[in-house]
């Protein structure tokens, strides 16, 4: 479904990013995988190459560091010359009540969850525009669309992703670049494994389908948005939450 497409996936070494990498690899995409750790990116690259007959390029940079993103894209340009799909997946989640919110929490969360998307898309949109087509998929969260107590920083950062998505969908539509976002609910990943049993149960009880989602289920939605199956879909925030109520 993604043969001859080149996809950049930020934060692809674990969780949802990793699941998207495997899903896209299975569907024939050429991958540019990203993470901050050289070892983890190399390990993922090895796993993908062993399992699938695809090209995998390694892009080790911190998405929240402007200069690293700039140099990363120059390296990507030299290797692939083009880009078709961008998944802005890298993100961090730190819980904090408003009265106990540290400046570092605020700064780091917005740097990774918001600023990084601008850095990436400033360069990526120009590469996509050269093909006069492309699909950008931003990972937001049900917390960004509905809010969540104790998560005002994370929720605020993810709400920003909604605004960025809808604005860029309008700005880039004439270049045939589609911009959508996925808003996962409670997904079984490393991020959610840290919850205590009581909080975990409370979350599950708020989901109409009665279970946590999987990273693979989110990846399937990313596949739909990345592929031509969604060629007339832009500016949408797609919930993958099993009917979760927040």
């Amino acid at each position, binding site marked *: 479904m993604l043969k001859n497409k080149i996809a950049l996936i930020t934060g692809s070494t674990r969780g949802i990013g990793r699941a998207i990498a495997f899903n896209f690899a299975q569907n024939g995409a050429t991958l540019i995988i990203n993470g901050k750790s050289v070892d983890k990116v190399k390990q993922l690259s090895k796993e993908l190459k062993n399992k699938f007959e695809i090209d995998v390029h390694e892009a080790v940079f911190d998405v929240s560091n402007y200069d690293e993103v*700039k140099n990363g*894209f*120059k390296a990507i*340009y030299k290797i692939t010359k083009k880009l078709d799909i961008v998944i802005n997946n890298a993100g961090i989640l730190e819980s904090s009540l408003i009265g106990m919110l540290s400046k570092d929490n605020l700064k780091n969360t917005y740097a990774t969850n918001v600023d990084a998307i601008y850095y990436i898309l*400033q*360069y990526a949109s*120009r590469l996509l*525009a*050269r093909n006069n087509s492309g699909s950008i998929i931003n990972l937001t969260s049900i917390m960004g669309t509905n809010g969540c107590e104790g998560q005002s920083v994370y929720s605020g950062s993810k709400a920003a992703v909604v605004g960025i998505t809808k604005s860029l969908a309008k700005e880039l539509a004439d270049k045939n670049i589609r911009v959508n976002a996925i808003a996962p609910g409670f997904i079984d990943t490393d991020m959610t494994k840290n919850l205590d049993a009581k909080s975990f149960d409370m979350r599950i009880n708020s989901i109409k389908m009665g279970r946590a989602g999987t990273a693979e289920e989110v990846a399937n939605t990313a596949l739909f948005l990345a592929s031509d199956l969604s060629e007339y879909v832009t500016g949408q925030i797609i919930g993958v939450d099993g009917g979760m109520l927040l």
Partner: protein
Amino acid sequence: MNNKKIVEIFSKSLGISEEIICDSLEYNSIPEWDSIAHMTLISELEDGFDIMLDTDDIIEMSSVSKAKDILGKHNISF
């Protein structure tokens, strides 16, 4: 050769005659060179000279002369 190429790119991207393209031509000084056309111009310059420009360069590219200076940083001489 690069002079001819940059004039052709400006002409094609902005949809203006080659005759009016000179070093002193500035961004936003003619209706054809607005922000939308600027991004098309950047794309054509990157394609034409096989480079990837920095975002700062795109913002600073305020004239034909400045464009030549910026391309000079990528070892493209005029």
